[in-house]
């Protein structure tokens, strides 16, 4: 028994290692979990229709993806990385140092972050300031001094809002959605308060801490990375609000409704034209040095940037992607398909 096991193990290992060629024939994609659903949809269609192998898409988070992507050039390193924010200057420099000189940046579209509650409850109309006052760790009191957030109900925040307990289910700090929420909603809200806005000039560190701090007294509940879970919990608790990506709102419109923010409801149109305030652009980056070595990269980019994929009627729209406006889409597609390298981001 033992001998046969060892023998088969050695044989199998030897067999599989020898077939492992030095070259790689599948595209490797890493990066943001926000872009993951779109990237995988394109990868699958690409594999099914174009005659190449289906690319491997890993969900590593934007930062983790950048780290892998900029680690070097060669078959051991990924060809494409997805990002829910622009590449940072420091990341670009890392790429340059590692030899990945030419990188093509492709802006795919927008991702909205919805603040939603159960259909059984009335739709809320929030402002960014309301969101900040409801969820911040410290808020200024009447005299301008920072005190731990005293607001217990939405009525405490804004007298127009219902007298319901503040109970918000949202992603934990490790999530990209949380980062974006803090950056877009919380910072937007805190800058609408003059005392805090003034702080930005005098004490930037303090300003950042105040704007980015989310309360830890139970009003904000970290519900894990799983947006489906948040939707399920909202359906069973009509007092709670949840924070998650627009695609989950789109798939669950029978159970939950998005709150209006600054009077704008999260819909495809409002996120696309930029009037919905809590939305961000999403990207992917291509390592030009790999084009030609790894088969199919050019065709993959072409598939991603074709209107049947990322257009307003395309299959990515069904997955919740919000397309770029027509003119921008055309120009990005053109430069992406020509693999024009990006310049250093600011």
């Amino acid at each position, binding site marked *: 028994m033992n001998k046969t096991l*060892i023998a088969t193990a050695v044989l199998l290992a030897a067999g599989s290692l020898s*077939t492992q060629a030095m070259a*790689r024939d599948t595209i490797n994609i890493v990066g943001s979990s926000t872009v993951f*659903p779109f990237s995988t949809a394109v990868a699958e269609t690409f594999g099914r229709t174009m005659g190449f192998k289906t690319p491997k898409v890993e*969900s590593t988070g934007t930062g983790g993806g950048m780290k892998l992507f900029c680690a070097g050039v060669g078959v051991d390193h990924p060809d494409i990385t997805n990002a829910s924010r622009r590449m940072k200057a420091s990341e670009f420099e890392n790429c340059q140092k590692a030899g990945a000189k030419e990188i093509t940046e492709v802006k795919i579209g927008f991702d909205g972050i919805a603040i939603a509650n159960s259909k059984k409850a009335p739709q809320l109309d929030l402002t960014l300031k309301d969101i900040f006052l409801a969820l911040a760790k410290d808020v200024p009191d009447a005299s301008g001094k920072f005190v731990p957030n005293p607001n217990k109900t939405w009525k405490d925040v804004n007298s127009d809002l219902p007298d319901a307990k503040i109970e918000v289910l949202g992603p934990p700090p490790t999530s990209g959605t949380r980062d974006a929420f803090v950056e877009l909603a919380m910072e937007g809200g805190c800058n609408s308060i003059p005392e805090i806005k003034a702080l930005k000039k005098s004490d930037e560190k303090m300003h950042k801490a105040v704007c980015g701090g989310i309360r830890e007294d139970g009003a904000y509940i970290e519900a894990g990375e799983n947006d*489906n879970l948040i939707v399920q919990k909202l359906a069973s608790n009509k007092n709670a609000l949840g924070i998650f990506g627009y695609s989950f709102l789109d798939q*669950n419109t029978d159970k939950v409704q998005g709150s209006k923010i600054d009077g704008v409801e999260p819909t495809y149109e409002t996120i696309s034209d930029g009037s919905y305030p809590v939305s961000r652009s999403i990207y992917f980056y291509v390592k030009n040095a790999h084009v030609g070595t790894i088969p199919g990269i050019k065709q993959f980019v072409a598939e991603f940037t074709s209107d049947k994929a990322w257009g307003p009627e395309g*299959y990515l729209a069904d*997955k919740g992607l919000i397309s770029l406006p027509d003119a921008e889409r055309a120009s990005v597609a053109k430069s992406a398909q020509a693999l024009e390298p990006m310049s250093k981001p600011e």
Partner: protein
Amino acid sequence: MNNLDASTPGAPPRHAIDIVNASLKRRYARESRFRLVGLIAVILGLAFVVLLFADIVSKGYTAFQQTYIRLPIALTLEGIDPAGTPDAQALANADYMAPIKAALRQTFPEVTERRELRLLNSMVSVGAADLLREQVMDNPSLIGTTQEIWVLADDDIDMLVKGTIDRDIAQGDRRVKDDMLGWVDRLEKQGRIEKRFNTIFFTHGTSREPELAGIAGALMGSFYTLLLTLALSFPIGVGAALYLEEFAPKNRWTDLIEVNINNLAAVPSIVFGLLGLAVFIGFFGIPRSTPLVAALVMTLMTLPTIIIASRVSLKSVPPSIREAALGVGASPLQTQFHHVLPLALPGMLTGAIIGMARALGESAPLLMIGMIAFIVDVPGGFTDPATVLPVQIYLWADSPERGFVERTSAAIMVLLAFLFLMNLAAVLLRRKFERRW
């Protein structure tokens, strides 16, 4: 005694049996309380298991069925002559969506507007064309004929037929529009909609479309990973146990090793993932997301379990066996391999199977080595990119489409079934081969 009586006059004489009798009631009560608490603990534990299983099964059993729509499809393919013998390449490249769309239009002739047509076409899965292609390639004589063919329905239709989508809420809040409801009802009345066994779930890799998503890829990934893990960890584990137990001198070094092995068994699995990332991927350059690297990490993780189990079962072999073998002139190596090892093997195998079951359910260390990936193609070897079952469950649980909710639960059922089978195998092996002295 007399003194005592004198000092407390009127007090009854105290005998040991009286003290016992007085406390008896309390002691019985204490025992029955303890039994009750134990029983409650067992019932609670069982209740939670039943609840968990009921929840998973009630959510997941529907995934084993999939909705199909029967359509009269005229298999006239553009560019392919029904009379001649078409070559395989042309057959593979033909547009199979066109005949399906034509059949839909023919079934609902009143639908003419472009937007409505798009809606009509969306009732059929985007993968239906591929399935039709397979059918035609298997049987090219179908070309030119009109066949009643069951085509795969879209996941929204599937959810509607399975009753997951509420028909009573306003159209705007529903993923299936009123027009579609009418079409589905009509198809149902004509017997053109049927739920059939979901073979795709067991034969396909993952997909972004719930109706096309299957666990075959993850299952094969788990299979390759476990096979290699077993092939590596069992011989190494048994060898280490044999040496440490039977041959190694007992000194401070072997004590240190023993303590370390016991400690390693309790190390959180994510740590092995980090180690694997640094050593196997970073240093040895083994490709990410492959069963090979996963198996190496799992081997590190399961080794302590196997070594400990193997040492225990070696210890349980009576010394008389060894003495008898040595007495008739067997060498120490012969003693071990001819006499001790065969007797200890069932216990070792049990330990190995339990270690494998743990490896099957493990996902944390795989996070670090690139197994959280979308991989459509079913892996065919140890160096193909792959995921494993627990990771597939994690990825599906995170997908927004409603159809993945039931598929997640179904995948959990499959994983649990395999875990159950492995544990059952361990129990049976132990029953069958275990010897008591």
